[in-house]
């Protein structure tokens, strides 16, 4: 056994994040760690990587008991970690990023040529092609991740922890990555894979360990289980059967007519003559590789970005060029794509974050009605099972998934005819995902018009009545729910034209 973690317990005051967790890893094994938000996966990995000290328990690497006081200790013992958010210097070259900390030197000078040579050898050895001289900022996300993995390999890692590695990748990149993991495992590298995506886990891992409430619920071979069994283990109950009632869509609520948005320096248009309609009682899904105009489209239909030409109407009213406040008054609720950038103020309280956009109903004569606010917010928190210390807790202390639930609760509470749901379940666990999906579908069934933007094709396919694919700022194609498959969408996302799908 390459790695054994025995009886790991971690307490934070009265909270037990890990409760006598056993975890092991063999050479060349891919071992996935799954569980809901707050199940203790991150804590366990932070302990392994030397970022936290266990309250109890032992870590044995290669037959020797080890104590990791810092990540450097863990790295020295052959453990590497690729974080969910990459830790790269965008303005430096690929080679510079990979050799950082162990730069080849010519005298006292940093020998860039040797570094590039070294990186080339390394990338060939592990079958991870990169251009050593390219700037990281110019590399697509998938390549940046390759750079992270090479960096860790260059540090001599035999065990690589991948934290939510596929979150930001396109379907093709995901496929490539999972293959690369398997290949590296054959070369003797071992992986610990943290993921929410059960299909990816099932397709790439040898063994899967499920954590719930800090305890190991079970450790199973991937070939002996399936997604349904795993989610039962994770959630601790049967998930509700998912069904989408047929609804005949009503009148158009949102129309986007021939909208063009130019880049800041008047370069290539970010949105190029985009037209779409969302009617009452339907969910329209927008798919696309990120950076193909989704963010701009979201900003246009929420009043956060000006259009250069074209027209936007909401609830029959021409809202082109109006402010976000006026969009909201015309009937918009908006689950934003980035919960921290747009959706919250981290330094402020949960209550303050919850009432944004609700001031009119929660104040009288310019004075906030504190008691009413407490009652309302408490009800929203209950309905979406947001875990928070109190209403006065600062938003930054909520976990990402709980923050997301709070935002969804806030926006659904508006009861508006039009809802933008952008990445509504990013980073949330299965239980929360179920709650959020149910809320969106319920609104649709009640006649709401919903624009769904998601980088998860499975989410788009599950919820949408119609699917539009954006490619380089244009609508590359439209598919109806019955017609759409992952392959067809992927093809359009990669720039294939709608007519060539068959």
């Amino acid at each position, binding site marked *: 056994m390459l790695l054994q973690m025995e009886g790991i317990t971690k307490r934070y005051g009265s909270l037990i994040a890990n409760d006598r967790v056993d975890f092991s890893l063999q050479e060349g094994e891919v071992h996935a760690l799954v*569980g*809901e*938000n*707050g*199940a203790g*996966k*991150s804590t366990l990995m932070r302990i392994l990587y030397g970022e936290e000290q266990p309250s109890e328990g032992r870590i044995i690497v290669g037959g020797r008991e080890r104590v990791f006081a810092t990540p450097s200790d863990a790295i020295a013992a052959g453990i590497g970690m690729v*974080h*969910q*958010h990459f*830790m790269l210097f965008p303005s430096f070259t690929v080679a510079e990023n990979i050799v950082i900390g162990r730069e080849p030197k010519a005298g006292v000078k940093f020998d860039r040529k040797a570094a590039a040579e070294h990186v080339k050898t390394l990338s060939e050895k592990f079958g991870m092609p990169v251009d050593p001289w390219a700037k990281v900022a110019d590399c697509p996300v998938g390549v940046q991740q390759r750079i992270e993995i090479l960096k860790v390999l260059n540090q001599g890692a035999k065990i690589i922890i991948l*934290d*939510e590695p596929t*979150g930001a990748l396109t379907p093709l990149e995901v496929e490539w990555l999972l293959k690369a993991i398997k290949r590296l495992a054959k070369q003797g590298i071992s992986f610990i894979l*943290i993921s*929410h995506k059960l299909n990816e886990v099932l397709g790439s891992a040898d063994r899967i360990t499920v954590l719930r409430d800090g305890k190991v619920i079970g450790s199973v071979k991937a070939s002996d289980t399936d997604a349904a069994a795993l989610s039962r283990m994770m959630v601790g109950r049967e998930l509700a059967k998912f069904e989408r009632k047929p609804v005949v869509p009503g009148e158009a609520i949102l129309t986007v007519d021939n909208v063009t948005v130019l880049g800041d320096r008047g370069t290539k248009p970010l949105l190029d003559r985009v037209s779409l309609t969302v009617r009452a009682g339907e969910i329209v899904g927008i798919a696309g590789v990120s950076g193909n105009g989704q963010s701009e489209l979201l900003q246009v239909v*929420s009043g*956060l970005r000006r259009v250069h030409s074209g027209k936007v109407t909401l609830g029959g009213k021409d809202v082109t060029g109006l*402010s*976000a*406040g*006026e*969009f*909201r*008054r015309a009937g918009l609720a*908006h689950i*934003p794509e*980035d*919960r*921290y*950038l*747009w*959706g*919250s*103020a*981290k*330094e*402020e309280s949960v209550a*303050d974050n919850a*009432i*944004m*956009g609700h*001031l009119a109903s929660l*104040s009288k004569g*310019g*004075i*906030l009605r*504190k008691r009413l606010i407490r009652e309302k917010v408490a009800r929203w928190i209950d309905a979406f099972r947001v875990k928070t*210390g*109190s209403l*006065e*807790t*600062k938003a*930054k202390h909520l976990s*990402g*998934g709980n923050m997301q639930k709070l935002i969804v609760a806030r926006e659904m509470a508006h009861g508006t005819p039009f809802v933008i749901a952008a990445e509504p379940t*990013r*980073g*949330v*666990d299965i239980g929360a995902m179920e709650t959020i999906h149910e809320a969106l579908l319920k609104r649709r069934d009640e006649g709401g018009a919903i624009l769904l933007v998601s980088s998860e094709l499975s989410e788009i396919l599950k919820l949408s009545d119609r699917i539009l694919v954006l490619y380089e700022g244009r609508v590359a194609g439209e598919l109806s729910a019955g017609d759409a498959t992952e392959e067809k969408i992927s093809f359009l996302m990669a720039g294939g034209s709608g007519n060539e799908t068959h």
Partner: protein
Amino acid sequence: MKRINWTAYAQSLAAPLLAVGVGLLVGAIAIWAVGGSVGTTYAEMWKGAFGSFYFTASTLTRATPIILTALGVSLAFRAGFFNLGAEGQMVFGALAAALAALYVPGPGPVKMLAAVAAGMLAGGLWSLLAGWLDTRFRMNLLITTLLLNYIAVYTAGYLVAFPLKEKGGTGGAQTAMLDNSAWLPKLFAGTTLHAGFIVAIAAAVLLALFLTFTTKGYEIRMLGSNPLFAAYGGVKRGQLMLVSMLLSGALAGLAGTFEVLGTQYRYIDNMLTSPGYAWSGIMATLLAGSNPIGSVLAAILLAALQTGGMGVERNTEVPLEISSVIQSSLILFVSARITFSFIKRRKARAANGNAA
């Protein structure tokens, strides 16, 4: 629930107290270096600041303009606008107040009210100008507010040195003295403390209530905390900026007004700039993390360091500059805290959405 709040309070107090502690320590080293006795010097400093009723009153008098500017700066900071123009706003406020009290006809209370209105308006408009330059021309507020200080200070200096100079006066650049019916009443006979102090305390309480309990206060806090979140929620940045800059400048203008009506009874060139009230106000805001009530305490602390420093100079060989050393190290440590939290914020952004 309560417990979380208390620890939060304790934490928010810990940093400024630490800064004060380190500041006193650095001061002690400086005192030791110039050959003074640390114990005696600090004892004299305490006596100079709070040693008698008279000295305490003097400290609070000095704190009054610092409190008011600190409140103005806090308001702007909370909305996310770095208003460094308190000095200019204060100077124009003071000059306008002096002129109103001199030239508006009528009985004392009318003059006084006219002076307060003119002072707040002048300070507010001067601040609004910087806000407008930002919303209209996207000129950097930090720079405009800073540079507008020079324009205000030198314009006022010129005006009282020439056209508005006291007729037949033998003094320097100053206006004529106000009619004593327009003077702010003293709170205690024989001391310098005037009614402006009460107004300053009331203003602090009002500002704290405004920020916590009103919709506009909420919008200001959210705008300062995350402007994108505010925009997303439909908060109008431009309008709110102009309002908060206007109010911020008006408070600085009021600080200047009270110095005229309560202490000097005329506008004298350099009466506000040489004691550095505005910069002390900004320091107090930073020290208190833009909390209105905290700003009052910080302002009194800074005033005490200054009046205490004078006591030290009167009674020991240690120079007045010692209190500047302490103040400067305070600011150094407070700004270290700001930089630190800025870095933390950057890091937190990098670690956003860390699932599981």
